[in-house]
């Protein structure tokens, strides 16, 4: 039921259908082992998060092998303007505070912009795909994402999280 969506998330991160298929299988095995006792309220989001975690694990493993690719690398490059280096790594508590602030920021955005941001930086969807899904031109998608990133950076600085 959610196979295509999970496959697309994994493929966007890894850039490979085979790797995406393997990630999906790993995620399904995790779900099989976790349910029960886990009772996710939103099974789709639960499954997608498992697939995404599996894809990121595989991505990091491949990166270590210097075999990176796909949309994730581009998305990471775009986010480096907000998070330039790994020297600012804070403790996990600060990271949770940061993500709470990010969540609040996303909730303050218009629905279309929020969905666009999440699809780009959570789902790692390609610009062309976003342009088609959101009825926008590719340049318009890029400009909109740049403005959201700039507002997020300003917001996090005002909150003292950057």
């Amino acid at each position: 039921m959610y196979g295509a969506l999970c496959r697309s998330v994994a493929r966007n991160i890894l850039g490979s259908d085979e790797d995406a298929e393997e990630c999906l299988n790993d995620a399904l095995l995790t779900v099989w082992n976790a349910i029960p006792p886990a009772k996710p309220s939103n099974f789709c989001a639960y499954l997608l998060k498992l697939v995404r975690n599996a894809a990121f694990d595989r991505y990091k493993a491949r990166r270590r092998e210097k075999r990176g690719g796909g949309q994730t690398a581009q998305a990471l490059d775009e986010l480096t303007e907000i998070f330039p280096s790994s020297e600012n790594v804070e403790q996990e508590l600060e990271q949770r505070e940061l993500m709470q602030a990010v969540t609040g920021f996303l909730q303050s955005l218009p629905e279309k912009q929020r969905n666009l941001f999440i699809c780009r930086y959570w789902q790692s969807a390609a610009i062309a795909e976003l342009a088609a899904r959101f009825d926008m031109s590719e340049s318009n998608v890029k400009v909109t994402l740049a403005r959201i990133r700039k507002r997020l950076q300003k917001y996090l600085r005002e909150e003292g999280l950057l």
Partner: protein
Amino acid sequence: MNAERFMELMNTLPDDMIDTAVHAEYRRRPKLMRFLPAIAACLVIGIFAAVYPKLRMQAPEITELPAATVTAETTAQNTAETTAVTVYTTAVSMKTTHQTTAETVSQTAAETVTDAETVTDAVTEQEQVLTVPETPIQPETAPPPVTTAILTVTAETTEAPIQGAPESFHGDAPEEPTFTLPVITGPWQKENSAPSDWPEPYIQFYFVRSTPDDHGYMLDSRYDPAHQQYIVVKVRADYTDAALCGGTMTPSGLQLHFVCLRPPDSTVILYYAIPLPDGYDILPEDCSAEYTVANDSDIFQKKQTDQPMIDVYA
């Protein structure tokens, strides 16, 4: 924190937010939907273009009544002292949306021309509010003969014997009229404009059967309540001036006589309303008119009467 770590942490976003985002679709409208406003606009313009001419045709005015056909025949007679020119104008048909049935008007006209060259330019409008005899007069038996054919009138070189009662244009009247009927002269529209590009002096008569309820033809106040039916005649003459001298009416027809003043340097449009007594159910096609052209303004003034009267025969 680096960007990669941030992307990993984004997995902590609320489930509903992620679920909504990954299922979000903002599809374009179908192409047909995009063209719907243009299609609707075209339809509105088309309908308006089709209806607008019909709307314009409503509420006609008598000044816009079209003349369908006009034929003219001119004959000239030369004598030692005078020159007579007879012009016959026939078959003027018209159709108005104001009336339920089309009315065909035929008319005859005879023009007599003298050789005098006196020209008078001054034209004054006539304005009269007249009353019609209150008691309708029933037509009597043994109707006198009525001349309906086109007549040729000899030219005039001397003063016309018009004083008071209008001149009879049918030759010798067989008997005295049963009664006379005043004509309502229309001052509401008398137009003088440049003459039309017509090879000969041009004159037209339009006859319309009208009632006091027919707004637009005449002022209501000018109608006599005793008469519910009128014949409204519109005269369009390419002359300096024109006027109704009189006429005759029988139960079967109405004939009017007009006088025009040379030269034909302008166009005069006049309106007259002739009340129809009971028993005189005259239709526009039963009406005819003839006219005399005067070269001298004095002759015109003598023929022109302040109160045109219609001789009514039983």
